[in-house]
C-alpha cells in the first residue's frame, strides 16, 4: 500500500539531538500544526533524517526532538512483526478513529533508553491525519506492528510515554545495553 507521499519531497533534513525523559516536552500535549507551513515540512524532513541515523528506530515524534507539536514520522518497512505497511511517511495532527484487537507487546523508546515495558495496543486501527507538504487529509487503516508504531507516536504527540500505559507494576524492565 502506498500513500500520496514521498519523503524526498520534504527536502534534505538535518539530524537533530534526541530529547530524553524526564524532559518536560515529552509530558505535555503537542500543539496542532499547519502541515503546509514550510517550518513544519522542514521539521518532518529533520525527523526522517534523525530516525534514519538511529539503529532500529521505526518512528520518531516531534516532542522527541524538543518540539511540542503534533507531527511524527514512521517507517516499519521490513520489520518482521509488520503486516500491512504503508512505507515511510510523516503525519500531522493524527487522530485514532477506530481501535480494536488489543494485544500485549513489549516496546522501547528512543527517549527512554534504559527501560522497556509491556503495553497493550490495538492490533487494528484507523487513523486520520494530514500529510506535511501537500496538507492532504488522509485516513490510514493498518494493523500489527505498523498499528503499534502509530499508537506509540500519536501518544508522543499527546505528551504520553509507554510508561503511562504499562500493564502492571512489574511490566517495566531494564533494557540491555545495545552496542
Amino acid at each position, binding site marked *: 500500500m502506498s500513500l500520496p507521499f514521498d519523503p524526498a519531497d520534504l527536502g534534505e533534513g538535518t539530524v537533530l539531538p534526541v530529547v530524553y525523559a524526564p524532559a518536560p516536552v515529552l509530558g505535555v500535549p503537542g500543539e496542532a500544526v499547519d502541515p503546509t507551513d514550510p517550518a513544519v515540512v522542514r521539521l518532518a524532513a529533520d525527523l526522517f533524517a534523525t530516525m534514519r541515523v538511529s539503529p*532500529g*528506530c521505526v*518512528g520518531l515524534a516531534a516532542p522527541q526532538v524538543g518540539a511540542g507539536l503534533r507531527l511524527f514520522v514512521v517507517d516499519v518497512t521490513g520489520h518482521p512483526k509488520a503486516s500491512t505497511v504503508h512505507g515511510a511517511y510523516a503525519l500531522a495532527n493524527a487522530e485514532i478513529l477506530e481501535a480494536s484487537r488489543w494485544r500485549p507487546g513489549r*516496546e522501547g*523508546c528512543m527517549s527512554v533508553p534504559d527501560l*522497556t515495558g509491556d503495553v497493550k495496543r490495538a492490533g487494528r486501527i484507523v487513523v486520520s491525519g494530514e500529510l506535511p507538504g501537500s496538507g492532504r487529509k488522509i485516513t490510514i487503516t493498518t494493523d500489527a506492528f505498523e498499528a503499534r508504531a502509530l499508537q506509540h507516536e500519536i501518544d508522543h504527540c499527546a505528551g504520553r510515554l509507554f510508561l503511562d500505559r504499562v500493564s502492571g507494576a*512489574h511490566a517495566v*524492565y531494564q533494557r*540491555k545495553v545495545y552496542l
Partner: protein
Amino acid sequence: MTELAVTVIGPDRPGIVADVAEALAALGANLTDSTMTRLRGHFTMTLICAGELRVEQVEAALAPLGLPFAVRDVGADEPVRQAGETYLVSVHGADRLGIVAAVTRELAGAGANITDLSTRLTGPLYVLLAEVELPAADAATLAERLAVVAAELDVGITFRPTQADLL
C-alpha cells in the same frame, strides 16, 4: 555517596510502604531501584538507597517500625553487564520439591543470567517466571535442555525471546 541495600518484611497492611519510605526520606536516603511485593501474607521490600548515610543511621530509623529488616552497605553502583538477548522462561505444573533448583541450575549451566524471577503457588499449581539474558547462539541448546528438565519434573516449560521493539 554510599549505597545501602535494605530489606524489610512484615505482615501485609496498608501503609507499610509509606512508613518505610518516610523513615528513609527523613534521613535523606534516596530510594533508587526497589522491588516490593506481597508474598503470601507477607509484604517484602528490597531496595537500594543512596545518600550520605551510615548503616547504623538507617537501622535506627527503621527500628521503631517494629518490622524485621536488614541494612547492608553494598558499595558503589556497578554498571549492568550485557549478557546477550533476553528470554522469558515460564514453568507451570504440580508443586513438588526442587522445581526452582532444577530449572535455575540448568539456566546457570547454560550461562544464562537471571535478571528477574518470581514464583507463585496457588493450590496445587506452581508457577515460575524467569527473565534471563543469554547469548543468542546458546538459546537452542538451552531450549532443548529445558525440555528434558520439564519431562523429568513433569511440568510445562516454555522458553521464548522477549525482545522489545524500539519505537
